[in-house]
């Protein structure tokens, strides 16, 4: 049995994703280092990870969000960067959780467009735009089988 020594106790880590035609992860990393004042910044292929005390992290991520407000997305991370249980350097293959990020980043262009459009909307206009969209229900199984029968 190995003793467990938690690392970075009392800190929090935030992911900062960028999916923008004008801002790169490198831009984020440089801007983050400018205001880091000693907290940990890790540049990644999708943006940066910021680790430090909650106040320091909030200060840095708010600065990064201002760089490109409609294309920068921020979320909490449970594990610190490089944690052996998550880091793909130790595991091989994609990091657990990567697929979720990959999926949602694919939708970011729609969300970015939505953020830009709603930014200047008044509350009444927002309410009007907030009508839930309904998609057509998926093809009925009976209908599908009748199509197959017709075709064969």
């Amino acid at each position: 049995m190995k003793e467990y020594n938690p690392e970075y106790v009392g800190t929090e880590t935030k992911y900062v994703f960028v999916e923008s035609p004008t801002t790169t992860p490198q831009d984020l990393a440089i801007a983050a280092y400018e205001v880091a004042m000693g907290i940990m910044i890790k540049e990644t292929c999708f943006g940066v990870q910021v680790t430090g005390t909650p106040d320091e992290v909030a200060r840095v991520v708010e600065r990064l969000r201002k760089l490109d407000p409609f294309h920068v997305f921020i979320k909490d991370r449970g594990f610190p960067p490089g944690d052996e249980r998550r880091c793909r350097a130790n595991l091989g293959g994609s990091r657990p959780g990567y697929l979720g990020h990959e999926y949602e980043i694919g939708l970011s262009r729609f969300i970015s467009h939505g953020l830009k459009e709603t930014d200047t909307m008044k509350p009444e206009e927002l309410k009007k735009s907030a009508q839930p969209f309904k998609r057509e229900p998926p093809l009925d199984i009976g209908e599908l089988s009748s199509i197959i029968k017709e075709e064969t």
Partner: protein
Amino acid sequence: MAKVFIYPATSLMLSDLVARFGHKPLGSALSVREHIQAGGFDSPPLQITPEDPKKGLHWAAVEVPSGVRGRMSLYGPLIEEAEAAIIIEDSDFAFGCMGCARTNELLIFLLKQKGIPLIELSYPKTKEEGVTFVASIKTFLAELGGGEE
């Protein structure tokens, strides 16, 4: 500032939008962080202790599989804390093993049972739906009050 539970609990977009409009997103990262910084794991790299499925009994009955109860020990406290919730229906990436699927069903059931303000949406698939998606969340969060508009 309201505490808003997000489903899927690992969602980047929901977490970002809730925080962006001045509220606190409650996602799995918060529980995981608390869990791994507290220590108490007997055999790292295991990330769960024998106590966790017991804690999960508060939200799931004893005959429910331990995998669901273990997950509920992470999500349960967040649901207790939640003052509102945003749910994405049929979110493809929340798909997982049976443990995940049953926990997801239980999460949505508990959120609806709790009677807190709740909004159900789908992921946008076009730019127009993106506007609707953001406008719905922005309106919902503004109605909760206390945000930073």
